[in-house]
């Protein structure tokens, strides 16, 4: 006999349990996926609806949004629908294996209404590698452009000899003006003394020498001082003469140095093909390498490798793996179809792709993650990435092929230096990267044709004739073909350029630069010579004139002093020669 008092409560309990499972399964699945997603990304994961079918072992998610931890107002990606078909047999064996799935309406980098940040302090930043690969070409062209962009006069003004010659011409007249002022002052004093002498002579008591003795003694003293001053002035003139000679020699030496410097500076290194190609295409391709390396690093951060996996910490016991049991990863997506939109070259493009082998334990799965995508827009882009993390180190291979990339008109190089306008056209882009551990190897192939190249040298102020010759050389280039061999490490990639642009243009550009530099060198040297020589000639002429004028003044003063000397001696009735009258003779002043 059935004891209903025992059975009914237990049936009710079982019923409640089933009901709770039926009602709570979807929220539980949604909560589990959100928790796992947030734990992995450290940003908000939102799912509008989750539907689970236990019988069909299927999970269907609607409106999935995963915030970008680096930019909380942006989604890392969002998807309209996610359908995952689970392997029920694996589920019974504690493995979550997605046999096949489909992610529809996948979009990257969409805007969010609310911040997607979580208050977790986990560093999500992926530092982009240092890959300033166009630096060498840029430095060389920078040097040339700096020289060519300057005006001749600006360049000459910076030279030492020109500066010294000007300084000499401006400084010396000031010196002579100072000397002239002293000579004029001396003349004034002579005049004053003469006036004093006349006063003494006109004095009725002048016959009595005793009465004019005081004034005469004062005049004699004054005369003595003036004589001394004339001596000083003459020696000062002599010093200035020597100084002027030294300054002139310094200007001549500076001129020689400047001419040598001009020769060295304008010795333009010839541009080889690689440098020129790197200058023109380096920036464009450097960005491609940087982006790819950044994505690889991002992927590596979140795809585990055997090396990085920490041993699970268990409080109680050890899980023994039996011999003969096939080891399989706990989580695996065997196949996933992806469709959605992506941003490429500033345009929204639709893509269709597949992802296979995404697992938390690649070493157990033994096969790499394979991502394939095909973009069908105006052009077709095929991407294939094989991310092999099954061994001790990661080995990633990425291939991008774009056979018919429609390029708009673009500028290679820099408009403020040497730039080349490239006409719109079809480009074949092929990129292959192989990253074993940190070691990078790979190749980028860019081929564009037919193409028209127009050089822009406006900023360099080269002669129109030379610019025309470069344009002619460039007009012969009907195709751009660049092969870039990559090496080095992920952190610091290196490359080697091979391009048809280089050999075809390097000769023309180098020749143009060499001719332009040679012309500039000769022109500047001639300008410096003429400037310095002209300044020195003017200097000599002016100094000579100033010196003669000054000496004439001093001679005049000397004569006047001699007359005054005699006059005072007569007044004092002194014997001839008592007052010193011997003055130094005029000094030669010639260059």
């Amino acid at each position, binding site marked *: 006999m059935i004891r209903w008092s*025992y059975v009914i409560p*237990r049936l009710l*309990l079982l019923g409640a349990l089933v009901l709770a499972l039926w009602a709570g399964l979807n929220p539980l699945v949604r909560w589990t996926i959100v928790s796992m997603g947030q734990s992995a990304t450290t940003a908000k994961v939102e799912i509008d609806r989750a539907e689970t079918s236990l019988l069909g072992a299927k999970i269907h998610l609607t409106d999935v949004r995963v915030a970008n931890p680096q930019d909380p107002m942006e989604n890392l990606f969002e998807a309209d629908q996610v359908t995952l078909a689970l392997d029920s*047999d694996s589920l*019974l*064996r*504690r*493995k979550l294996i997605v046999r096949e799935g489909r992610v529809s309406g996948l979009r990257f980098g969409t805007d969010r209404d609310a911040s997607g940040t979580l208050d977790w302090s986990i560093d999500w930043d992926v530092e982009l590698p240092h890959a300033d690969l166009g630096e060498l070409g840029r430095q060389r062209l920078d040097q040339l452009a700096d020289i060519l962009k300057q005006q001749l006069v600006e360049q000459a003004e910076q030279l030492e000899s020109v500066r010294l010659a000007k300084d000499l011409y401006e400084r010396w007249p000031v010196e002579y003006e100072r000397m002239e002022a002293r000579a004029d002052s001396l003349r004034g004093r002579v005049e004053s003394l003469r006036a004093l002498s006349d006063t003494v002579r006109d004095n009725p008591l002048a016959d009595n020498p005793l009465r004019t003795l005081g004034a005469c003694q004062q005049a004699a003293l004054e005369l003595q001082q003036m004589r001394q001053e004339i001596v000083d002035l003459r020696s000062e003139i002599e010093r200035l003469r020597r100084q002027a000679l030294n300054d002139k020699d310094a200007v001549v030496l500076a001129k020689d140095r400047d001419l040598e410097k001009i020769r060295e500076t304008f010795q333009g290194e010839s541009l080889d093909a690689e440098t020129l190609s790197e200058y023109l295409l380096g920036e464009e391709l450097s960005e491609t390498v940087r982006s790819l390396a950044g994505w690889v690093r991002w992927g590596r951060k979140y795809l585990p490798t055997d090396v990085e996996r920490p041993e699970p910490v268990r*409080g*109680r*016991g*050890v*899980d*023994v*793996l*039996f*011999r*003969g*049991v096939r080891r399989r990863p706990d989580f695996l997506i065997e196949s996933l179809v992806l469709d959605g939109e992506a941003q490429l070259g500033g345009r929204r493009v639709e893509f269709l792709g597949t992802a296979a082998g995404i697992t938390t334990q690649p070493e157990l799965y033994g096969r790499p993650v394979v991502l394939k995508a095909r973009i069908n827009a105006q052009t077709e882009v095929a991407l294939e990435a094989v991310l092999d993390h099954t061994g001790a180190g990661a080995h990633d291979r990425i291939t991008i092929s774009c056979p018919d990339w429609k390029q708009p008109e673009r500028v290679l190089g820099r408009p403020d230096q040497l730039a080349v306008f490239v006409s719109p056209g079809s480009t074949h882009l092929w990129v292959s990267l192989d990253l074993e551990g940190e070691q990078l190897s790979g190749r980028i192939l860019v081929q564009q044709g037919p193409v028209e190249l127009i050089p822009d040298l406006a900023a360099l102020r080269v002669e129109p004739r030379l610019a025309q010759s470069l344009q002619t050389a460039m007009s012969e280039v009907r195709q751009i073909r660049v092969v870039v061999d990559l090496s080095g490490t992920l952190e610091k990639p290196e490359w080697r350029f091979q391009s048809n642009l280089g050999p075809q243009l390097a000769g023309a550009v180098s020749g143009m630069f060499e001719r332009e530099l040679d012309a500039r060198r000769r022109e500047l040297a001639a300008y410096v010579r003429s400037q310095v020589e002209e300044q020195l000639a003017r200097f000599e002429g002016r100094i000579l004139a100033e010196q003669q004028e000054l000496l004439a003044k001093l001679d005049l003063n000397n004569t006047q002093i001699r007359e005054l000397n005699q006059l005072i001696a007569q007044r004092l009735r002194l014997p001839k020669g008592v007052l010193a009258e011997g003055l130094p003779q005029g000094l030669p002043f010639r260059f």
Partner: protein
Amino acid sequence: MLLRFIQPLRGLARLFTAAGTPRQLALGLAMGMLIGLVPKGNLTAVLLAVILLASRVNLGAGMIGAALFSWVGMLVDPLSHRIGQAFLTHESLQPTWAYLYDLPLAPWTALNNTVVLVSLLLGLWLFYPVYRLSELAFAHGQPRVVDWLKKYRIGQLLGGAEMAAGWRDP
């Protein structure tokens, strides 16, 4: 307010008085012991808990047993691990273990864990002795506890109406 504080003590008192026979109490305690010894978070522990809930045994005794033997289980873990290691890695048993592990739901049971397996075996081995000994203890101890509770006012407070009904119908 006071009743809320003494509610756990009333539950304990009820365990020894009204809710079940010494057999049910002993079965509950033995099953609780089994659950307590086995590490949680696996299908084995869930199944044991379901059996406990679905059986006509004393749940209170089961919970006390589980709580008590969880501590005991922690103490014997090192020993369990060593024995489990010997069992699970034994060469001749490998094909058997591999076959069992490959069965559906088997990985959820965590019986490939050294401590889970030995704790379960230890619990099963101890099940009957614990049951027998505790049944004897409850059979002797239950009337004494009831008498003691009857004597004191605190017993009446803890027992309340339900206990009084139990006393009327031993």
